[in-house]
């Protein structure tokens, strides 16, 4: 692996993200031609005030939503890569393991007990929920001497997930709060409600955590060879693992606390990127983040257009593609 390859691939995938976003900007109840989108964008970049009614849709509705979808998609995909590496299981992802669910429960708890009124109260409890779930999954699925068994891992995820869904539904039925939005927001994900400061916060958190994760990328390559092997090749496995789990939980918690639970993207995207670019995390991690961003923008565009004028939760789209993909991966794995 060379730095120039990483930069080339990242640039390519960033262009892909830009192209998808450009298309997505023009699609919707009011269609805007790509050249008009471009000229409006260029105009704003040149310092002009947006004036036309189309511009309002572009800049205050669609653009924030697309940026948010990008941030959330990148967060969930990068999170998937890390969990798959740490658990040595290509089927692990924040949603399947129940970590998104735990995070959502933490966020809802924050609303219920009133902690969301405090600055960062909601994301903080979402983070605690995510961390607690990570811990739970490792305890439930951990065999003797830290060996994780494939099936027990997925089983632990199923159990943890259904418990959290029940707890979320319970919280929603006892609490009648305007802040709780709709049920579908927490259970299926929704990218339309984030405010600009929230998007900025999530983006900052993603960039910071991604830097931490990327610094460990080469160690991850060794950890997927087995923790003992990594140790023998000079990796301080325990410290690396805790750092990665904390940074990943934070990224997932922020994404979930603003966007709800969006499933399967953390499995599909890393798997596709592994097929195309191989398993080296120095390339896989940025590739998955950038492609994940594009993927969720595309999925969200579909969510807001297929049944226009009404909208689907974006999690419906990702689950509709993701669940069959998951089954396909599982069958292929068993045949080996």
């Amino acid at each position, binding site marked *: *692996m*060379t*730095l120039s390859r990483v930069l080339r691939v990242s640039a390519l995938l960033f262009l892909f993200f830009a192209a998808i976003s450009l298309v997505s900007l023009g699609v919707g109840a009011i269609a805007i031609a790509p050249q008009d989108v471009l000229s409006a964008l260029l105009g704003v970049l040149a310092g002009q005030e947006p004036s036309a009614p189309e511009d309002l849709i572009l800049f205050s509705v669609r653009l924030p939503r697309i940026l948010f979808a990008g941030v959330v998609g990148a967060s969930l995909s990068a999170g998937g890569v890390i969990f798959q*590496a740490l658990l*040595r*299981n*290509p089927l692990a992802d924040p949603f399947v393991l129940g970590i998104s669910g735990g995070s959502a429960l933490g966020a809802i708890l924050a609303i219920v007990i009133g902690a969301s009124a405090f600055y960062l109260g909601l994301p903080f409890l979402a983070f605690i929920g995510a961390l607690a779930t990570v811990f739970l999954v490792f305890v439930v699925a951990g065999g003797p*001497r830290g060996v994780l068994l494939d099936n027990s891992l997925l089983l632990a995820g199923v159990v943890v997930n259904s418990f959290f869904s029940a707890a979320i539904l319970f919280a929603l039925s006892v609490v009648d709060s305007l802040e709780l939005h709709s049920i579908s927001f927490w259970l299926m994900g929704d990218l339309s409600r984030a405010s600009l400061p929230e998007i900025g916060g999530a983006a900052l958190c993603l960039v910071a955590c991604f830097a931490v994760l990327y*610094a460990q990328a*080469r*160690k991850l*390559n*060794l950890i*997927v*060879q*087995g923790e*003992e*092997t990594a*140790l*023998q*090749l*000079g*990796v*301080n496995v325990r410290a690396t693992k805790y750092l990665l789990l904390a940074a990943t939980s934070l990224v997932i918690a922020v994404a979930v606390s603003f966007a709800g639970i969006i499933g399967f993207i953390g499995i599909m995207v890393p798997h596709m990127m*592994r097929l195309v670019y*191989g*398993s*080296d995390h*120095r390339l896989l991690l940025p590739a998955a983040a950038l492609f994940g961003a594009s993927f969720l923008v595309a999925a969200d565009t579909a969510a807001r257009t297929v049944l226009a004028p009404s909208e689907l939760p974006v999690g419906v789209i990702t689950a509709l593609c993701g669940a069959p993909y998951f089954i396909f991966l599982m069958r292929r794995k068993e045949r080996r």
Partner: protein
Amino acid sequence: MTPLLSANHLTFSYTDRPVLDDVSFEIDRASIVAVIGPNGSGKTTLLKILNATLEPAAGSLVLSGRDTKRWSRREIARTVAIVPQEIPAVFPFFAEEIVLMGRFPYLRSLAFEDRTDYRIAREAMEQTDCLAFAHRRFTELSAGERQRVLIARALAQEPQILLLDESTVFLDLKHQARFLSLLHRLNRERQMTVIFVTHDINLAAQNAHRLLLLYNGKKYAIGTPADVLTAQTLKEVYDVAVGIDQNPHDGSPRVTLLT
């Protein structure tokens, strides 16, 4: 002269039953040592303590005059390399990528492998005859090919001590012969110390300068093959009757099972 490695009263247990019980020995620089003993006698555990994968419950391991507790992970990985038994591969890395991982302890944390690293990895792959499948996926290789890749990875660590855990089991005759002559060459030319675990007593007798015989977690004997391999010892440790004569090709003791 201080020995390269000295194990002092090593004790280890996974549960209540000790796997290693008060094992002490010394190993000189540039020697080839075979660790033998019946199943469950603590051979693999001993290897894992020798590269600090496991920490002994009691006792200490002194490497080049310094207790391994005071070595960093990276320092140990630059000095001691192990070729493990079989590891399950989950993600499809290329064989060359696996070998390059042996360079990890030499690289700064954000650095990419440079030309020197690639050269060392290529040399290691040449020595173990894996260049032909450098760009195939590790998961698709046969057991013997995988083993050669793992040997190359250990060589890429440029260790002073090479630990081998049953590393010839999956190799065919040709690659066994190549591997053994490679070990002797590394030992001669680079003063590499080789410590290998094996069940093949004749392989041990022919290739090692010294044998360490473990029995129920205890050191039963250490010494030259001729000293250690006596009919009486093998009767006591393995509970088998053997005949011992001299190998006509190299003069090493030759053990024949009498059934």
